[in-house]
């Protein structure tokens, strides 16, 4: 069978794994697709490559299509999220100087308790606290805002979130431009390796089920090519299922470390995949069991309520109307297209497309549209819940 070639953009990060695995392990081929990868040096260039039609689909920060729907940032053509590529996977780190002050004050760096870590950070940090994130519209930025505002550091007076490209994060700390950072793996581990910082908390300690990256396409493309988008969704869904197996993870570390993808040592890539991270140059390690998820707990389902949460957060800090922002955001996560694509497979699908975010404080068995599945905990560290307007 002649395969259809699709140009796909990605940023060299651990969580580009589902797309790379879909191609390398033959899941794309099963759907008659060949993925031609285009590595992007920055999120804005990945977004533009997609907007201007240089690529058909891309690995994208979940908040980017939402921000575009809200008219924030640049980007000419509206984007939609066909599925969630990964849940969680970010890590918060602090400069060595700040880490030392926190340790001196008695913080244990347990890598679990977001409240204790946040309070220790606030107590030890200068005013304002400056945190580097990779992009203004990113789950990194949203998690940091949510976490520190809940602990009483309202932005922008006492908290400054700065955009720093991950490769330049080390310089930014050295130059005293930032005190802390939130990045995706393997950049957190790289920061530890280069001796510039220590890891404080995995993103999942702030929100246990945060949609991190999405499979993004142009809205007009999704609507004009339902067959192709369906094939792509299925290929990536199977890749995610494979990735959430133990064998899958260690093989994936090898695949991802190739020069064409991440070009980094497999052991560095494996840290995030296994959830066992070295948090300081001294070699101390911590394990986060749900550091990043590619499949488990219906991780790929693009919940409209997730998009609404992002929209609501973005609106709150940019002064937009909150309810308008939530409705606009909800249309961007295409649970309708996702459902249609997986109808013919064994995939479990939820009965509804929106839920109360943050309501599960432990994993539980629950009903899906056709059967049962394990639902993973999705609580926020402060126990608040988010009820979407639809």
């Amino acid at each position, binding site marked *: 069978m002649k395969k259809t070639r699709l140009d796909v953009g990605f940023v060299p990060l651990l969580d580009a794994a589902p797309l790379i695995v879909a191609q390398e392990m033959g899941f794309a081929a099963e759907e008659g697709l060949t993925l031609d990868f285009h590595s992007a040096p920055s999120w804005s*260039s990945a977004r533009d490559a997609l907007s201007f039609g240089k690529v058909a689909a891309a690995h994208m920060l979940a908040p980017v299509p939402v921000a575009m729907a809200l008219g924030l940032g640049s980007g000419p053509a509206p984007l939609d999220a066909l599925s969630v590529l990964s849940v969680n996977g970010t890590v918060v780190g602090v400069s060595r100087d700040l880490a030392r002050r926190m340790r001196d004050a008695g913080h244990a760096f347990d890598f679990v308790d977001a409240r204790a870590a946040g309070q220790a950070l606030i107590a030890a940090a200068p005013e304002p606290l400056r945190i580097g994130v990779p992009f203004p*519209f990113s789950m990194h930025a949203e998690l940091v805002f949510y976490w520190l505002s809940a602990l009483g550091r309202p932005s922008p007076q006492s908290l400054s979130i700065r955009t720093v490209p991950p490769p330049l994060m080390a310089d930014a700390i050295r130059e005293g431009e930032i005190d802390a950072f939130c990045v995706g793996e393997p950049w957190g581990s790289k920061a530890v390796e280069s001796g510039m910082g220590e890891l404080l908390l995995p993103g999942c300690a702030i929100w246990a089920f945060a949609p991190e990256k999405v499979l993004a396409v142009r809205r007009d493309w999704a609507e004009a090519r339902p067959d192709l988008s369906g094939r792509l969704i299925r290929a990536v869904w199977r890749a995610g299922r494979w990735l959430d197996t133990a064998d899958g993870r260690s093989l994936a570390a090898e695949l991802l470390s190739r020069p064409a993808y991440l070009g980094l040592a497999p052991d560095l890539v494996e840290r995030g995949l296994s959830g066992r991270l070295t948090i300081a140059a001294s070699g101390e390690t911590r394990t986060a069991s749900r550091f990043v998820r590619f499949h488990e707990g219906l991780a790929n389902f693009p919940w409209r309520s997730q998009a609404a949460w992002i929209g609501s957060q973005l609106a709150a800090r*940019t002064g937009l109307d909150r309810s308008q922002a939530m409705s606009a955001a909800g249309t961007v996560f295409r649970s309708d297209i996702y459902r249609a694509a997986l109808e013919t497979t064994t995939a479990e699908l939820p009965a509804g497309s929106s839920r109360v975010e943050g309501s599960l404080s432990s994993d539980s068995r629950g009903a899906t549209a056709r059967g049962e599945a394990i639902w993973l905990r999705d609580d926020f560290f402060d126990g608040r819940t988010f009820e979407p307007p639809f």
Partner: protein
Amino acid sequence: MPELLTIVVVEPDPDRARLIVEALDDSGDYQVHVIAERAALARQIAKVNPDVVLIDLADPSRDTIEELTLATGPLDRPVALFVDRSAEGLSTAAIEAGLSAYVVDGLTPTRVRPVLDAAIARFRIMARMRAELAETKRALEERKVIDRAKGLLMRARGIPEDEAYALLRRTAMDQGRRVADVAEALVTAAGLLG
């Protein structure tokens, strides 16, 4: 007469920066600032308060500029990537040339067009130069590997140089591979065998 357009060029390489500035000077009268230092880029740009920002598409610092597009950012005017509203294909041409341009909303396309045309033309030339340089480097590397492989064959088999090269070429032809690839494999294998 409207005020001069203020243009910021973000380019750490002084030679490339000079080429871009020259191209802009040739195309019109502008106030051009070059920012070479990437630290605190957003604040540096905000201080100049430019009408247009030009930056290499491959520069990772580009994401920092996105920060300025936030309404609550330090710039009092929003900045947006130039969109094809009137000038057909201009953004696509820019992207193909490897250029990203940020243009303050509300600036008339007639004022921006010559800036972008000049920058696009210059970026195309630079992209070609970059490709040529990479190609030359690669050819040089291959040359070196082939010379080493020839040396290995000459020593191992006691044959002269032209025979060693002929052997490499014949093997490459038989296997349907490039001479450089066969040479590379031989050098690697010799390294492994000690």
